[in-house]
């Protein structure tokens, strides 16, 4: 007989479970970002179709799924290749930094290359593909495989002309794979108007992932989209991804729900006189800060102070420099008394320099994301967002910024964006419309103060805290940036 409390707890538990979507068991891939976007990995014991055009990364993804499964999740795998030879595959795997020989020796991995040559095969009546089943079955049983890759089943269509039999056998193969309890990845070539040339998606109903490789304005862009994932709520967006030396890296940030707890911890901006203007005495940790202003108003200088302050706290900072070089920035900061070189030497500060036109917007986002994941900074500066406009529309750039900001917030990173604003623009006109997204907005300006040209700073907004609403003079000297606290009259120039 249950006590009243226990009965109530049971009711609550039941209700909660019913509300939550029943989760299918999943096989973690270990591929950076992919487990996040799939909610844990690929459907366990079921087939997943990975399709895309030539060179989109299907084989690489399938391979990494298998190799990581073997090495990191203790799930041996069979790679049945209908196209590349075992030697070519071995080279690819090795180039990703995996020791193939060791895996094969340990019986964690088995690579089987199947030759399907059309001219050899004269069809004289009814047949089935039981030979393939037997071969695959033996491979699986030999190493106790839990994962299987078939790359690519469509090669069978090149070898046999009786498509009726082929389709029936493919259907049978997927059922057979599920019965064997292996998590399978099947690759397929993108077709005209259909997901795959031979319509493999008809047979794979559990999970279909589409890879896309586009070249737009001479800039390469790779995207991944989950077309279907039965039983899982998944994002339907396209996620950018990179193929790097150590494998694939999917950027799992898109239409994120803002599920993070606002931090109440305060960090100094590095400029004490600026801290005084902020009700909390600094910035909230994990908040986003926008520093806008026309050229030469001191945006990068303030960012530099913030980074130096983080270094003093023993925290790592990542400075993404899209306009100036590392040495220029270090030199400029040195001239106002901020020493960044020692921080770099200590490893507390890392610069990520890239010209916006080096590669596409999505790739930029992906690289920055990757850098953040690897380096784990607590502060990130993006200087400046305006340069990203040379690579995309305002909408596209906004999208990048939003995703990056969301990611930073969820990772506990305090993020600083600088934005160039034309001198005659009003506060409301930031060229990428991110002012509504950020928590704190510092607007810098050149101004004429009592007949002398100078710089000013005002705080347009600072969420979660009171702030000075006065415009103050900003002075840069060999001692750094300083905000003068006597109120000044300001004439816009």
């Amino acid at each position, binding site marked *: 007989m249950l006590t009243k409390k226990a009965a109530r707890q049971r009711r609550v538990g039941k209700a909660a479970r019913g509300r939550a979507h029943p989760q299918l068991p999943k096989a973690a891939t270990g591929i950076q970002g992919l487990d996040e976007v799939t909610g844990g990995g690929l459907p366990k014991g079921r087939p997943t179709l990975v399709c895309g055009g030539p060179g989109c990364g299907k084989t690489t993804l399938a391979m990494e799924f298998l190799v990581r499964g073997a090495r990191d999740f203790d799930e041996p795998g069979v790679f049945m290749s209908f196209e590349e030879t075992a030697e070519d595959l071995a080279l690819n795997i090795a180039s990703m930094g995996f020791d193939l020989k060791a895996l094969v020796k340990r019986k964690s991995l088995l690579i*089987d290359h*199947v*030759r*399907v040559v059309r001219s*050899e*095969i*004269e*069809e*004289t*009546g*009814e*047949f*089935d*593909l*039981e*030979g*393939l089943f*037997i*071969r695959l*079955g*033996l*491979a699986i049983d030999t190493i106790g495989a839990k994962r299987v890759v078939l790359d690519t089943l469509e090669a*069978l269509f090149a*070898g*046999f002309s009786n498509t009726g039999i082929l389709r029936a056998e493919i259907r049978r193969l997927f059922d057979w794979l599920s019965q064997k309890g292996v998590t399978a990845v099947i690759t397929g070539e993108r077709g005209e108007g259909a997901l795959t040339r031979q319509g493999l998606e008809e047979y794979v109903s559990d999970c279909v992932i589409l890879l896309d490789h586009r070249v737009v304005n001479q800039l390469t862009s790779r995207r991944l989209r989950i077309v279907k994932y039965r039983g899982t709520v998944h994002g339907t967006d396209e996620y950018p991804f990179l193929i790097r030396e150590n494998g694939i890296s999917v950027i799992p940030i898109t239409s994120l729900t803002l599920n993070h707890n606002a931090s109440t911890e305060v960090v100094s901006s590095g400029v004490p006189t600026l801290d005084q203007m902020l009700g909390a005495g600094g910035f909230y940790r994990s908040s986003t800060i926008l520093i806008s202003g026309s050229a030469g108003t001191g945006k990068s200088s303030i960012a530099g102070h913030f980074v130096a302050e983080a270094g003093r706290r023993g925290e790592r900072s990542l400075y993404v420099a899209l306009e100036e070089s590392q040495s220029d920035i270090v030199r400029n900061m040195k001239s106002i008394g901020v020493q960044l070189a020692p921080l770099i030497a200590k490893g507390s500060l890392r610069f990520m320099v890239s010209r916006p036109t080096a590669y596409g917007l999505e790739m930029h986002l992906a690289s920055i994301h990757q850098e953040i994941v690897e380096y784990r900074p607590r502060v990130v500066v993006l200087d400046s967002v305006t340069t990203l406009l040379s690579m995309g529309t305002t909408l596209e750039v906004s999208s990048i910024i939003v995703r990056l900001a969301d990611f930073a917030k969820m990772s506990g990173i305090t993020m600083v964006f600088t934005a160039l604003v034309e001198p005659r623009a009003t506060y409301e006109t930031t060229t990428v419309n991110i002012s509504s997204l950020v928590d704190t907005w510092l607007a810098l300006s050149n101004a004429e103060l009592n007949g002398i040209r100078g710089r000013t700073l005002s705080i347009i907004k600072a969420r979660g805290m009171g702030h000075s609403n006065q415009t103050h003079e900003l002075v840069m000297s060999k001692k750094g940036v300083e905000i003068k606290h006597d109120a000044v009259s300001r004439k816009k120039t």
Partner: protein
Amino acid sequence: MSPTQKLPVKKRALQPVEYILCLYVAGETARSASAHANLKTICDQHLGSRYRIKVIDLLKNPKLARDHQILALPTLVRQLPSPVRKIIGDLSNTERVLVGLDIRPAK
């Protein structure tokens, strides 16, 4: 005695076998039995006694599926004479079998 005259039985058995045919199957099924039967018929009709059929059951010897690159079943491989030729199916289409094995139909 000319070579074409009828030889004593013992000597006939020692005549060189021109065709060695390997039939790959997966266990004893209706299809494999029918393929075997079709093959025997065709061979008797067009090859006289100059053939030998080897039946290889992949269920008993699964390793051969990979070693001999067999995907479809049944598969018939003409080992001799060379070059090796491969055809698949239950061999119900006699014409295709003859073409595939490169056998000139006996008159």
